[in-house]
């Protein structure tokens, strides 16, 4: 039996494995050192790798990511932490305009092999500036790989792929999943970027999910299974590269597509998935494409309000029922 670890532990485990393997991997961020990070996702790293490779920084998001970029251009593989994904807005220039464009603008001369890790998403009552799902900002920027794992094993396997990648990777860890548990990953485990996982097989309807919405989709599928409906759950794992082949293959089986995303509908990645299917998969569809997404509001503080805004299992179940009834 494989050991069980938390998603939170998987983060530090995944980083530690790569740091042991490759001495050029270094970490920087706020309170990631002796404190082990505000989410304890870097716990133990400082003790094992010491102050040269695990660097506490001032509150300077631009310097954190900008320095990571300069280091990545010159022979180091930085793993930078931005504490909450909302704060990516404070260094967005680096992620939108600098890092992803470097290789292209220089005609291929310069690579930027870095990972920016960040705690994404809501559901914990942290309010409007500490709860957003901002993966769509990144999706719109050519040149960034975008990863968002849903399980501890995927955290480890995707961190390995991300840190070894010569492309810059934005790695979204979901706050709501930190306490969740799952099997750990065997030594050397690597999940290639751009391969979706079929988290549950089924033939009646396809649910496409990412990170926090994977457990919601699975719970909804369980609920429908009681009524004899077999839902297939596709965990995208990455937004870039986006594994549309797996999605289209699933829709080919089920003819029905529901997309579940934590971010607001407008501008959400579900629109990209839907539009590919509405084009290339048009003939596969027996029903409209539906999306369960967040409302167009900032994330409210009170949990009773937050529940109204972001997807819940109940909302996914309701959407599936209406889709199946079409």
């Amino acid at each position, binding site marked *: 039996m494989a050991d069980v670890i938390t998603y939170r532990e998987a983060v530090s485990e995944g980083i530690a494995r790569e740091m042991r393997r490759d001495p050029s991997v270094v970490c920087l961020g*706020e*309170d990631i*050192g*002796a*404190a082990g990070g*505000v989410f304890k996702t870097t716990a133990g790293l400082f003790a094992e790798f010491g102050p040269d490779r695990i660097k*506490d*920084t*001032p*509150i*300077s*998001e*631009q*310097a954190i990511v900008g320095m990571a970029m300069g280091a990545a251009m010159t022979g180091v593989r930085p793993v930078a932490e931005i504490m909450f994904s*909302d*704060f990516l*807005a*404070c260094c967005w220039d680096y992620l939108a305009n600098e890092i992803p464009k470097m290789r292209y603008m220089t005609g291929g001369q310069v690579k930027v092999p870095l990972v920016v890790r960040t705690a994404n998403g809501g559901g*914990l*009552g*942290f*309010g*409007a*500036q*500490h709860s957003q799902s901002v993966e769509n900002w990144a999706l719109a920027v050519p040149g960034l790989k975008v990863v968002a794992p849903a399980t501890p094993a995927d955290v480890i396997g995707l961190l390995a792929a991300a840190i070894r990648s010569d492309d810059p990777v934005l790695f979204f860890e979901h706050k709501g999943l930190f306490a969740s548990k799952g099997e750990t990953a065997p030594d050397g485990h690597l999940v290639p970027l751009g391969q979706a996982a079929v988290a549950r097989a089924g033939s009646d309807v396809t649910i496409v999910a990412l990170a926090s919405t994977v457990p919601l989709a699975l719970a909804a599928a369980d609920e429908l299974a009681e009524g004899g409906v077999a839902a297939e759950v596709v965990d995208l794992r990455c937004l870039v590269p986006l594994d549309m082949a797996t999605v289209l293959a699933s829709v080919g089986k089920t003819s029905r597509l529901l997309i579940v995303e934590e971010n*607001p*509908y*407008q501008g959400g990645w579900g629109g990209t998935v839907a539009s590919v299917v509405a084009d290339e998969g048009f003939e596969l569809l027996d029903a409209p494409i539906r999306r369960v997404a967040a*409302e*167009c*509001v*900032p994330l*409210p*503080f*009170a*949990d*009773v*309000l*937050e*529940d*109204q*805004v972001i997807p819940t299992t109940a909302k996914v179940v309701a959407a599936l029922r209406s889709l199946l009834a079409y």
Partner: protein
Amino acid sequence: MAVDIGARDLLGLYEQMSVIRGTERAAHDLFLAGLVKGTTHLAAGHEAVAVGASFALRPDDYVFATYRGHHHAMARGATPAECLAELMSKRTGVCKAKGGSMHLTKASAGMLGSYAIVGAHLPMAAGAAWSAKLRGSGQVAVAFFGDGATNIGALHEALNLAAVWALPVLFICENNLYMEYTPIGSVTAVAHPAADRAPAYLLPAEVIDGNDVAVVADAVRRAAARARDGGGPTVLEALTYRQFGHSRTDPATYRPAGELESWLARDPLELARQRLADHGVPQADIAAADARAAQVVAEAVAAAKAADPPDPADALTDVWADGGSAWRT
């Protein structure tokens, strides 16, 4: 330094601090009891900064604070009841439970918000000061910020532009030695992260005892007067200490032994009690103030507990000027 607060005013300030301290303790207990969700950043220890500054400001001046802003909200007039109700996700919360602990705001009292992205509000305060200047209103804007905020780019941009436009804005740093768990001294070369940066913008600066409400009031009064006279911004660095951990249940084990104790000895309420004694205020008056404060806090806790949760339908209001949140027509 001329500290000219009379005994009567001082006792009032003491009582305000006592209310804030009591509310922070209550928030702490309510958090441990599971009645405050999410996260919360207590300002116990910082009371003198908020209360002293508020005393020195006009009611129509503008205050911008951080996620550690309960004291500023209350010092400007938000009631403990509406603050605690906000923390406890109640309909009667000062922001209808949409903001939470980190975003206490009471616009009607010139408390223009608590901001949870470090340093972001510094340009906003400059902007409010610009607005005051454009309107010729004589108002002053104040940004309170932590020592940790002194290394973020927005600080630099705000100080420079405020200086060049000679805006009526005060930048008041609450230097409590720590960011979250990392000491500010380990990530800043200069000794005074706020005051030592002021010369880079030709701005005047002062390092003050942030635990002495009279000292704070005096420094803010002088800076505000200069700002109103067209003399431009001032940087004040108030030395203080947070008595709880950074947030929630942080046990603050990173503090060196004895540090907390030495600051508790200079607790702002204790310093105020000493000043009151120096002014000849009887112990009984102080005790009465504490008792009134305790009463206010107890009633606030009760009221917040008794209040209703928000109406779920309110989740979709207040995005747009029309009151709703529709993104399509």
